[in-house]
């Protein structure tokens, strides 16, 4: 890159802005009494990056995700998010109003069970439109058009915009949940086992869809799963957790093809081959 002719400050400023992680996690710890939920977790998530977190049940994956997304309060540590307006801020020091605002604009949370993330008594259009309305949209026609557009993007027939999620199949519910979360154009998504409980062909379609969306809108994702195939497909980097500790981290292919830690080796070799 030729820097010679440029007026130094501006260029450097921009570069610094680009070279800043979207989410910096430092020493996050959460305990349940004397038991460890997760401890000593630190990592950086860069814009457009997908970070997979794998581990067995009870390894602290979901606790960690809860701490990062503001649903649980960690006992110590920092979760620094690069906000649009004010730059990097520790989300744990934010007021609840600010955190909720973040939660409906720049953040998304996809639950394993779509019933946890959807309003089952409200139509598909209403589900997708809720974030828009929460962010101040007050034009019915525009809200509906955006909702229909997003249904199409997640491969749901837009003529079903007035149907309740209850009438949808499991895979459709999950895709609806994704549309409902991404409609506000978030920069960071937390996903807790987004493909759990779906059959394999539906899983494959969902993964395909997710991969496309992540690439299209440059979304950063923290993805918790126990399914190594899912992280192989979606994740750029991987963290392996056991007993609340991060025991191995690195590029996904690196970790999966050349696992160093004994537990990771066990995990990788436990996958059933067809």
């Amino acid at each position, binding site marked *: 890159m030729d820097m010679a002719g440029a007026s130094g400050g501006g260029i450097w400023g921009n570069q610094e802005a680009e070279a800043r992680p979207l989410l910096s996690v430092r020493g996050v710890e959460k305990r349940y009494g004397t038991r460890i939920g997760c401890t000593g977790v630190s990592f950086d998530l860069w814009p457009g990056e997908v970070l997979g977190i794998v581990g067995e049940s009870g390894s602290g994956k979901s606790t960690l995700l809860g701490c990062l997304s503001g649903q649980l309060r960690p006992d110590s540590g920092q979760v620094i998010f690069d906000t649009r307006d004010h730059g990097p801020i520790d989300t744990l020091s934010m007021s*609840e109003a600010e955190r909720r605002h973040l939660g409906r604009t720049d953040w998304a949370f996809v639950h394993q069970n779509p019933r946890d993330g959807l309003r089952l008594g409200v*139509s598909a259009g*209403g589900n997708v439109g809720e974030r828009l*309305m929460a962010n101040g949209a*007050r034009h*019915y026609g525009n809200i509906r058009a955006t909702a229909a557009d997003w249904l199409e993007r997640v491969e749901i027939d837009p003529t079903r915009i*007035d149907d309740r999620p209850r009438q949808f199949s499991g895979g459709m519910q999950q895709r609806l949940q994704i549309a409902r979360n991404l409609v506000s154009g978030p920069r960071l998504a937390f996903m807790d086992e987004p493909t759990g409980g779906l059959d394999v062909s539906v899983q494959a379609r969902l993964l395909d869809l997710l991969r496309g969306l992540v690439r299209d809108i440059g979304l950063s994702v923290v993805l918790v799963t126990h399914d190594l195939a899912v992280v192989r497909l979606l994740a750029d980097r991987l963290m392996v957790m056991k007993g609340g500790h991060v025991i191995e981290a690195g590029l996904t292919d690196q970790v999966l093809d050349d696992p160093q830690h004994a537990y990771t080796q066990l995990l990788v070799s436990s996958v059933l081959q067809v």
Partner: protein
Amino acid sequence: MSDYNFAYLDEDTKRMIRRAILKGIAVPGYQVPFASREMPMPYGWGTGGVQVTAATLVPEDVLKVIDQGADDTTNAVSIRKFFQKTAAVAVTERTREATVIQTRHRVPEMPLTQDQILVYQVPIPEPMRFLEPRETETRRIHALADYGLMQVRLYEDIARHGEIATSYAYPVEVAGRYVMDPSPIPKFDNPKLDDCPAIQLFGAGREQRIYALPPFTRVRSLDFDDHPFVASKADHACAICGSTTSYLDEVITDDAGGRMFVCSDTDYCAEMAEGGA
């Protein structure tokens, strides 16, 4: 008079309720919890309104009680008698003569004045009750003014019926802050809440909540830019007084489809019929 303390409630209780009312007036639209008492009438009959009225009444007051606009229905008659017996206050059916008006489901047609207090009976004070079942969560929504959910309810109405079909208990935003349930008044009455010179108090007995609108408070009915709020009523004139501007009740007169539309506000109708019109 009788062995009752003035207006039935003991003085400590009235003081507690007055404190809740003052707090409600200080924070317009905010639901103030209060220790609702057992009243000698069933829940749903206006126990909240009666307690608020009891705490507001002074011996010089002139009380009017209406139920669905009428002064002569069971609920109105019982509550009026209750206060005649326990407080010995003067009563009236005339809106302009009353100083305290307790109402169920209507706002009088006659414009209210600064010398009046309007007390509403409220069955469900929480406007988001059927959208969000957790009271802890609705309180948080109010605290953070995170009202997207309220708009979803209106969205669903339009999606299902082509227009905002909510016709009573239509949610309002108070003074640019709290979203409030105006009690089950028809949405025709919503504009009367806005900039009203009278003090408006809302009492929910079973739910133990009091909220209030101070005089001249801005009250805006929620809506969409392309589906604005419309204060609708039956498209007829009153069959008795001929008024075309008052809210009408539909009365079935026989079993062959016969019906008539009459003013729901009986006092207003009588006055118009006497020669006001």
